[in-house]
């Protein structure tokens, strides 16, 4: 035990002290970071708007916020981007915020969550729309009523559609040409589609996938069900909504179809048409024409399509920007309407599916008038021009789906994006009742089983889907 040990102890003690002091120093210095109080606008009295996405998505709305604040002095806005892997994840985070006692005032909600919010969390906007009807006339004239109807719930309106996407069929033109296929017809059928896949497969070499799809509510089995004029849930419509339709869509050709909103209250997975559509997809998988869909996947799909190894895949206008960034030229691919079913009622309707999104005012919002001003401004032509500078979604306003946005980067037939609504009035939103979370989970897990095995496995998966849906719909969201 000499001096050396003691000196060693001193330096060790100094090191320990330094670590301790460092931790204290870091805690003090980083206190705002540790408590989150450095997040801009947090804890302040601001109109808080939650959107799905990253900080970059929030910043993309900076101009919109600036202009809104300029026109509405006294209202301060805070955009809160919530990174989520999918909509369901986003909604559960919003619910968590509600649970944590810090709900946002406005939430950007897609069809997936529209009824969940309408049922439990959102405040209807009927009174504001009626009050400001003169201002709103121009908006509704520019927006297809099917999109608006998707945000109608039991006769009340909850959101104004800002953007939307249909499931159209993207196809790789070089794979298409290599198979010597003529351009697909606008009224092609699933039989034509299958034949085209087979030719592409034959003409291609190596790891080529004729049909790539993802297993989720949007763009999974649903477009094939709608094509066959069926769905995995019984589709009904609520009465009501005349206040809106008579005011703004009195002379629309679709007026007779417009209702107080969709209702999905019963499972329908045992319908013969559902069986037919599932069996078609299973056939594609069995014959190597389509992939077995990955659960929650889609994250590499743009890259795979851009790399030329995917023949066809369902997507909407939101894909154009991604393909452009991945280096695809507009001539490398094109887009066609989703095929119709060759037989049955679907044959005449050629019904398509879409999903749309817009802002919903939360029941808990303190200043609902300010929130409505935000909804109104972001739906205005001026507001939309501030955010849609790139074709990474389809604007709800027909006049915005134009040469300027899609002409340069988009495929030859980009007009088909909005024509999906204008030319096919039966086109409807993806089925998303208030219990959407459990419904989508039930769908995804049974679809993956149904299409990746034998017919017997498919039968039992459909039975189990029917049972799971019954359970899901019975619970209160």
């Amino acid at each position: 035990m000499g001096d050396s040990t003691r000196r060693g102890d001193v330096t060790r003690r100094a090191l320990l002290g330094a670590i301790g002091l460092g931790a204290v120093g870091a805690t003090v210095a980083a206190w705002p970071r540790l408590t989150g109080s450095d997040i801009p606008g947090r804890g302040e009295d601001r109109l808080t708007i939650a959107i799905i996405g990253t900080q970059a998505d929030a910043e993309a709305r900076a101009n919109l916020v600036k202009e809104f604040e300029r026109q509405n002095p006294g209202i301060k806005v805070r955009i809160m981007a919530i990174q989520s892997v999918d909509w369901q994840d986003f909604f559960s985070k919003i619910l968590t915020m509600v649970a944590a006692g810090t709900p946002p005032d406005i939430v950007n909600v897609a069809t997936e969550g529209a009824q969940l919010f309408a049922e439990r969390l959102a405040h209807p906007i009927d009174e504001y729309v009626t009050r400001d009807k003169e201002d709103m006339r121009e908006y509704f004239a520019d927006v297809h009523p099917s999109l608006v109807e998707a945000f109608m719930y039991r006769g009340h309106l909850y959101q104004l559609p800002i953007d939307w996407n249909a499931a159209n069929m993207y196809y790789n033109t070089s794979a298409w040409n290599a198979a010597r296929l003529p351009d697909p017809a606008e009224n092609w059928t699933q039989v034509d589609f299958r034949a085209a896949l087979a030719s592409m497969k034959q003409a291609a070499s190596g790891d080529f996938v004729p049909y790539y799809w993802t297993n989720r509510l949007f763009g999974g089995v649903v477009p094939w069900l709608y094509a066959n004029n069926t769905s995995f849930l019984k589709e009904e419509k609520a009465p009501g909504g005349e206040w809106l339709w008579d005011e703004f869509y009195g002379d629309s050709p679709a007026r007779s179809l417009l209702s107080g909103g969709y209702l999905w209250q019963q499972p329908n997975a045992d319908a013969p048409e559902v069986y037919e559509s599932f069996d078609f997809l299973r056939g594609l998988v069995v014959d190597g024409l389509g992939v077995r869909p990955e659960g929650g996947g889609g994250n590499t799909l743009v890259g795979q399509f851009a790399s030329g190894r995917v023949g066809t895949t369902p997507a909407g206008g939101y894909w154009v920007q991604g393909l452009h960034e991945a280096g695809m030229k507009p001539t490398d691919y094109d887009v066609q309407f989703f095929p119709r079913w060759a037989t049955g009622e679907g044959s005449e309707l050629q019904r398509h599916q879409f999903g749309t999104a817009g802002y919903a005012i939360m029941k808990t919002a303190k200043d609902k008038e300010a929130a409505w001003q935000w909804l109104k401004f972001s739906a205005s032509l001026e507001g939309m021009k501030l955010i849609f500078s790139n074709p990474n979604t389809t604007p709800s306003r027909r006049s915005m789906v134009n040469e300027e946005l899609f002409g340069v980067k988009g495929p030859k037939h980009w007009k088909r994006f909005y024509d999906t609504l204008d030319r096919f009035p039966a086109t409807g939103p993806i089925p998303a009742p208030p219990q959407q979370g459990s419904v989508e989970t039930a769908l995804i897990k049974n679809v993956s089983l149904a299409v990746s095995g034998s017919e017997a496995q498919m039968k039992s998966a459909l039975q189990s889907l029917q049972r799971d849906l019954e359970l899901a719909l019975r619970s209160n969201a």
Partner: protein
Amino acid sequence: MTTQTITATAKRRRPFDWGMALRILVLVLVGALILGPVLWTFSTSLRPPAEGLTLPPSFIPLNPDFGSYAEVFRQLNMGLLVLNSALVTGLIAVGQMLSAALAGYAFAFLKFKGKSALFSLVLATMMIPVQVTIVPVFMLIRGMGLSDTLLALILPAIPTAFGTFLMRQYFLGLPTELAEAATVDGASPLRIFWSIYAPLAMPGLAIVGILAFNFHWNEFFRPLILTISEQNFTLPLGLVTLQGNMGTGSISVVLAGVVLSMIPALVVFLFGQRTLREGLTAGAGK
């Protein structure tokens, strides 16, 4: 014949060692299976984003392209993610070292009522998985007004039953005579702890710290639940959401993020491997 030539001939005559060859073959094979995926990750992150999926795979980056790394920084606030992970991990590690050292010392050297009962209680909580208590912890955090903050990740992770156990064992291995001498001199327990035992226990503290670092740097479950704002994400969470967002279309970008997140762990691996090994196996020796 010299001695050297004799041994040389002996060596030459020894039959080929099949056992040894097989042994090395198996080890090399497993080694390749372990390191291969990591090399592929690294190498693919250095491919141009458009070629991320190109086959055959590459394991050695011959023409490194750093585009994906730039893209990660464009898409993710990488600096903030690293800062968050560093703050959370660092403060948990120091907090655990401090609290475990104090508690371990008390359990090793101090005498007080209910000692063995308290120690058993602490040990018993080691078995309780975090997933079982996450819902009430979430509520507690809400009650404290700490929802969606980094403190929500840090505070619950500081008390450590395992670290306390480890430090107690470590202190028990130290000589007691030093304390006796100091006590005779009239030093207080705190003083004895700080001037004599804390410095001696540094290697044990390092184990606690490194284990905490390794675990919490890579932690996924709690951040997934306890943070909401992107500004409060830690690295693993940021990476998984980067993968989930469909914007990129390139796996090279995701893998670049993965590689970046590995760097600090790699540094610990290179410089603290021994401590980490000791720490990981320490629990088994109880």
